[in-house]
């Protein structure tokens, strides 16, 4: 019989490492997708994911079961992504530069184009895009999570979609032909 997430979390908080391994298996792919939206390059995703679960392991004793484990876990991932963005080396190439280089040699497809377009968005736009589109959270929920007014979040989301749409049109092969 499948164990409920609350029971699994309770076992983990009592120091059961098997329960932690189960939580990792349950959440690693959803978090990888979430972090892929927040990362500035696909290469970062594995490191960000690893760091997220490392922080989760350390913070386990501080978690109090209230039915919002998912939100708590995503908040950790968000903080990890923000820290990585702050540490980003100034000399690192911008995603647009990488995309332009790849496009020049015919290596880029629509998915890569989208990935680079998302990576080029400012951090706060990437965050609201990941939380609304990938996590399916409402603006009110995101507002509570980030402490930002819902109206501001809607403006950011609208701006993000506009930029993505323009980028996709630029890279659309049918449009070019």
């Amino acid at each position: 019989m499948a164990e409920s997430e609350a029971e699994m979390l309770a076992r983990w908080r009592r120091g059961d490492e098997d329960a932690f391994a189960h939580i990792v298996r349950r959440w690693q792919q959803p978090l990888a997708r979430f972090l892929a939206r927040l990362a500035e390059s696909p290469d970062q995703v594995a490191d960000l994911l690893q760091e997220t679960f490392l922080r989760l392991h350390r913070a386990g004793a501080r978690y109090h079961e209230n039915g919002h484990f998912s939100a708590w876990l995503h908040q950790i991932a968000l903080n990890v992504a923000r820290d990585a963005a702050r540490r980003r080396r100034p000399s690192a190439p911008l995603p647009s530069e990488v995309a332009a280089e790849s496009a020049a040699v015919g290596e880029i497809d629509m998915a890569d184009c989208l990935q680079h377009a998302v990576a080029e968005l400012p951090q706060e736009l990437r965050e609201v895009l990941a939380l609304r589109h990938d996590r399916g959270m409402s603006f009110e929920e995101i507002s509570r999570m980030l402490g930002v007014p819902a109206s501001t979040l809607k403006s950011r989301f609208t701006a993000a979609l506009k930029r993505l749409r323009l980028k996709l049109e630029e890279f659309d092969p049918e449009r070019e032909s």
Partner: protein
Amino acid sequence: MKCQEIVELLPLHVYGDVTGDEQAQIVAHLEQCAACRTEAEAYSTARRQLTQASPSTAAVDLAAIYRDENRRHLRRARWWQRLTWAAVAVAAAVLLSRCEIDVREQSLSVRWGGFNTERVHDSVVIVQPRPASEPAAADQVRILQELVHALAAMIATQDRDRQGELNTFRGELARLQKKIEAIYAETRHDVSALYAAQFGATRKESIP
């Protein structure tokens, strides 16, 4: 609503994040406006492509997490160990700088506080084996000291007497020595006189 207002709301409309009233107005507008329908379709495509372009998957290295945690626990343990030793060293230094240890014949006292100023705490006697017998012991010591002094005085008196006797003996010895010399001189004179009477000449000195 005008086209510009409709286009502004289209990203939210695609995700169903507009109010019921706005939704009705947008739907009505899109039925009549081909340009706005194209815009709406572009946003729908963007949303679909975002969903289809599944970001890369990744797997967590659990062993690496456990290794990192073990290293972290070891670092923390070493840090606490160093802190403990440092605290012990500081405490010992403070104690020694503020502490006075007095070792006496039958007691060990430890005091703390400022030595050049008024003491903060009264002295605390840690070891005092026979505190009640201290007066008796002092008397014994005093008696012993008096006995030693008396013995020393007696020995000095005896020494003086012996010295006097010795001086007397020395004087007697000197007197006897002079007497023997006088007898020897008389005997020598007599022997010389007898020799001259017998042989008519003075005898050569042979006695040293």
